[in-house]
């Protein structure tokens, strides 16, 4: 008698859904662990990347959503070039991040990572009065991040050193002239596409 875990029918549909959204053949993973062997972040991950793939195969959605692994994945693609089955695990992790965001099920311990990503993109839309549409703006991003997390003292000295060397312009670049508004429109379309 086999003791290997098999997914039930409705649980298999979770795997299918993530496969379709990530365009990765998750079901062909046979856990050779090459991805985990090369992963530079696995020392802080709750689950190795192949374990996440196995959990998806088994339809263990809650467990996958609660894991810190997708949020700590930095997308370095070491797994992608080493997988014998052509699975880019980092794309699966991105998909899990997007799904947990859409279902509002982000583990509280990883909220800051999500917050940083959201503020990074938000700052690209530009700011009232000072503008800055379309470009990264470190001072604005870090200001917002500190305001939202309440952690005002982290990297203060580094910020000072950067400013001293002219590496952190105080005001954002206003580079969009003839094409002004295009970035805002792209973000508007992204929002509309996400709406149910």
């Amino acid at each position, binding site marked *: 008698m086999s003791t290997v875990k098999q997914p039930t029918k409705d649980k298999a549909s979770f795997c299918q859904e993530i496969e379709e959204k990530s365009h990765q053949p998750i079901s062909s993973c046979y856990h050779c662990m090459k991805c985990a062997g090369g992963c530079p972040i696995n020392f802080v991950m709750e689950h190795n990347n192949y374990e996440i793939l196995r959990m998806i195969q088994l339809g263990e959605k809650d467990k996958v959503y609660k894991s810190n692994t997708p949020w700590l994945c930095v997308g*370095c*693609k070491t797994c*992608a*070039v080493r997988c014998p089955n052509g699975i880019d695990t980092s794309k699966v992790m991105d998909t899990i991040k997007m799904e947990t965001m859409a279902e509002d099920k982000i583990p509280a311990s990883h909220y800051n*990572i999500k917050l940083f*990503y959201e503020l990074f993109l938000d700052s690209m839309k530009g700011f009232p009065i000072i503008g800055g549409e379309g470009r*990264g703006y470190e001072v604005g991003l870090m200001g917002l991040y500190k305001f939202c997390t309440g952690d005002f003292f982290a990297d203060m000295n580094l910020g000072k050193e950067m400013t001293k060397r002219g590496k952190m312009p105080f005001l954002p670049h206003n580079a969009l002239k003839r094409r002004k508004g*295009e970035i805002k429109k792209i973000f508007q379309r992204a929002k509309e596409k996400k709406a149910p």
Partner: protein
Amino acid sequence: MKLGYYPGCSLHSTAAEYNMATEAVFDALDLELAELPEWNCCGATAGHSTDRFLALALPLRNLVIAEAEQQKELVLPCAACYNLVKAADHYVREGTPEANDANEELKNIMGSSYNGTVHVTHPLEVIMRKEIVGKVKPQVKNPLKGLKVVPYYGCLLTRPTYVAFDDVEQPQAMDQLMNLAGADVKRWSYKTDCCGGSLTVPRTDVVYEITKKLVTEAQRAGADAIVTACPLCQMTLETRQKEIKNPIPVFFFTELLGISFGHPQAKQWMKKHIIDPIPLLTSLHLL
């Protein structure tokens, strides 16, 4: 030769010295860089982690402008920007439904879409071309004698395979260039390990650990400095050496080329570093 140039946000701020050095080295090699007008941020990790549409539309917009400017090649010195723009170009050429959709949306917003005609490239790939790399050696007036370095490629320059212009596991381009510049290139096993850059703000603790490992290994290999081709690797490695007893500077490869060319502005680039490289360079009489 005239090339389109997309510096990316970092080269206008945290990696200003990379911008200056790249422009100087390209100029010395008779390559003209024409900055893409009204370019936008590629979206970086924040884009591809949170939104499928933005992950494609933001990099693609730059390629639409490049085509409108009739640029045949676009040079991106930031490995992260290079990776995302190259990937967007790849998906358009492959004709994936998501890329087609993003392209169609851009047509509505910008009046034109991207047709897949631009060669997306990195300064390292450009300089390593046969007809250009031959011009490097005659320019080396100040060989980097005694400068022990390990080349650090990081993640996004060589992976995944559709962005790679060098071997994905054992890239050589920077090793060869540094040899040409006269540096003492050390071997190590961490040249393609990731620096964890995208977690440097929200999970600084994790990045301290990674940096500690990379810098310790570089020192164990006998290096006095690390050389990189990515502004995020450089910033992460220079600013997160908290637990290292004797921190080492992290150079951009174009900076070291510029120094070997005897460029008069090189000292100005060095002054922008967080870990001061000037004592090391003057002790070797290179600056």
